[in-house]
């Protein structure tokens, strides 16, 4: 599977674009389901943070990006990685601790990076990627690359100092950066109602002199449209944008979550707002895709994940022999 060049444009601009939007959302969904399954079968180590229900946000954002534009991601990062065009086999292989995995088995789910698609990496530290994206944007500006840097983070991360410091730097230096918050209502068990004294997280932008925009994070079209405006702004040199995408994670925070902090009804309500059928209905209505095409695309995503899992399972396990040499990049002579 070769990396998609991205810069797709509007999800409803053409049949090809609609196909991309649906395919990538389905890839994310099927990937996460496969991860859950591998875990359930004891084939995967560690923990997992699934983004099922949130697929429209990274897909819509990344359709406004080129392959050179950079992202930083989070512990819940599989979706960002896939939306930016990563290779599914190497992703699964990483989760299975294989040599061909993105990190050679050294990083696992929370640390996948894919330099070829501009993904500077997921992060185990909440908020850790936000200042890094500001730095990437600073480099872009200093080196006149013309690229933007997008930091994906959760609502919970907005209460870390890292968010505040990075937002201010991006603002005062007018950086080509997008602060993309996936507001899924909870940071682990902390609801946004408990963790914030403001109702609208986008208001935080004002405090830094950054436009703050709310979008329906379960609507890939709406996400794309806001993302495109933010990208245009950044590339024109007008500075950063804070996007708050309202979404929801269907699954527990990680594998050990008993969901004691929310109700079954709430989860059910949000399941009805599934971004995938929402987009299918829209694409069919706007005559970009037919039902048959949509079915085929979903099948294609499933097949791609199955193939990736099969290939990754067969790959060679990472070898401890090279560990000591892996810490530092060799100093060139």
């Amino acid at each position, binding site marked *: 599977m070769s990396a998609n060049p991205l810069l797709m444009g509007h999800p409803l601009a053409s049949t090809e674009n609609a196909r991309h939007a649906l395919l990538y959302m389905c890839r994310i969904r099927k990937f996460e389901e496969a991860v859950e399954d591998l875990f359930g079968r004891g084939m995967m180590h560690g923990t997992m943070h699934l983004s099922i229900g949130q697929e429209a946000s990274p897909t819509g954002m990344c359709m406004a990006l080129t392959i050179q534009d950079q992202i930083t991601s989070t512990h819940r990062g599989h979706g960002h990685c896939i939306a930016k065009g990563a290779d599914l086999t190497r992703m699964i292989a990483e989760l299975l601790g294989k040599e061909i995995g993105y990190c050679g088995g050294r990083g*696992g789910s929370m*640390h996948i990076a894919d330099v070829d698609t501009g993904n500077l990496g997921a992060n185990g530290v909440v908020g850790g990627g936000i200042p890094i994206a500001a730095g990437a944007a600073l480099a872009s500006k200093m080196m006149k690359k013309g690229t933007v840097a997008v930091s994906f983070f959760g609502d919970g991360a907005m209460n870390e100092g890292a968010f505040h410091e990075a937002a201010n730097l991006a603002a005062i230096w007018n950086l080509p950066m997008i602060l993309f918050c996936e507001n899924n209502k909870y940071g682990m068990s*902390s609801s946004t109602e408990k963790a914030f004294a403001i109702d609208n997280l986008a208001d935080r932008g004002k405090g830094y002199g950054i436009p703050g925009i709310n979008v329906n994070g379960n609507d890939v079209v709406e996400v794309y449209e806001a993302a495109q405006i933010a990208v245009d702004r950044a590339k024109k040199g007008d500075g950063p944008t804070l996007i708050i995408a309202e979404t929801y994670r269907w699954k527990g925070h990680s594998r050990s979550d008993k969901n004691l902090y929310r109700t079954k009804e709430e989860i059910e309500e949000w399941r009805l707002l599934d971004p995938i059928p929402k987009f299918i209905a829209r694409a069919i209505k706007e005559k970009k895709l037919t039902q048959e095409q949509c079915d085929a695309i979903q099948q294609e995503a499933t097949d791609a994940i199955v193939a990736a899992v099969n290939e990754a399972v067969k790959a060679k396990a990472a070898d401890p022999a090279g560990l000591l040499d892996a810490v530092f990049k060799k100093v060139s002579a």
Partner: protein
Amino acid sequence: MSDRMLTMAEAVREAMSIAFDERPEVFLLGEDVGIYGGAFGVSGDMYHRYGSERVLDTPIAELGIVGAAVGAALSGMRPIVEIQFSDFTAQAMDQIANQAAKIHFMLGGALHVPMVLRTPQGSGTGAAAQHSQNLEPWFASVPGLKVVVPSNPADAKGLLLASIDDPNPVIFLEHKLLYKIPGRDPVPEGSERIPLGVAKVVREGKDLTIVATGIMVNKSYEVCEKLAAEGISVTLIDPRTISPLDMQPVYESVEKTGRLMVVQEGPAHAGFINEVIAQMAGSSSFGSLIAPIKRLAGMNIPIPYAPQLEKAAVPQIEDIEAAAREIVKNWR
């Protein structure tokens, strides 16, 4: 003596509950310590028993959380902070190392910081490099912090009660693999304290002295049992608190055994266990050694993800056994 076998999570919860009952100024704050019961289930039902004013759920903001604890501690409260993973003490390091640790000294004794920061550390869960570190040398290198590394539920209970009593900042490092397993010894009822700065001689032997910290005490214990069956007897010493450090039992033991091995999970380079070696080297007991001191520690690498890599990165029971055998066989 009771025969209650608790896990470390249960023992820590029991100690916190006793302290809550004894002193109204004790409270717990941290991420997800409330209704979730803590990321590792340590606070458990305390939120339901003590309410949201004493079991304070916080936003994800480690610097703020620890700073708030420092301020509350300066002002009459006795906070217990839970940082979800020790790795994220990095976010709070200013408040820990520059503020809490120095206030009493720097301010001429005018104020003090009766605060306990509890946090899980260590590898073995597949959580990779940013969730698996053993950071005791960070804290042990800061004068003004007391550092506790319990290896079993009974010690954890007594040491935590003493830590909460202590008028100084105490960093209490719990190995996350110990949370769910019962200890070898029962956990006493009641509220007896185990004083900070007193090492524990876990078992006594005449051929080798092993000093191990945290989970390595448990791994070393298994090795001791195995070697005992073959006629090799080992003294195992658990310092329990690494600041302050009680070396006396180590000196006394080495005078009998003549051989010393030190074991820790964290990386060897500049690790805490080197302090034991340094103090040994400068002591009058040094002359009793008939073998070079053996150091067994983690590799000097971040903790990797894949299980086969993660295992290779830290000492395993087999490694401790092989090293112990070697030092006893080769130096007579």
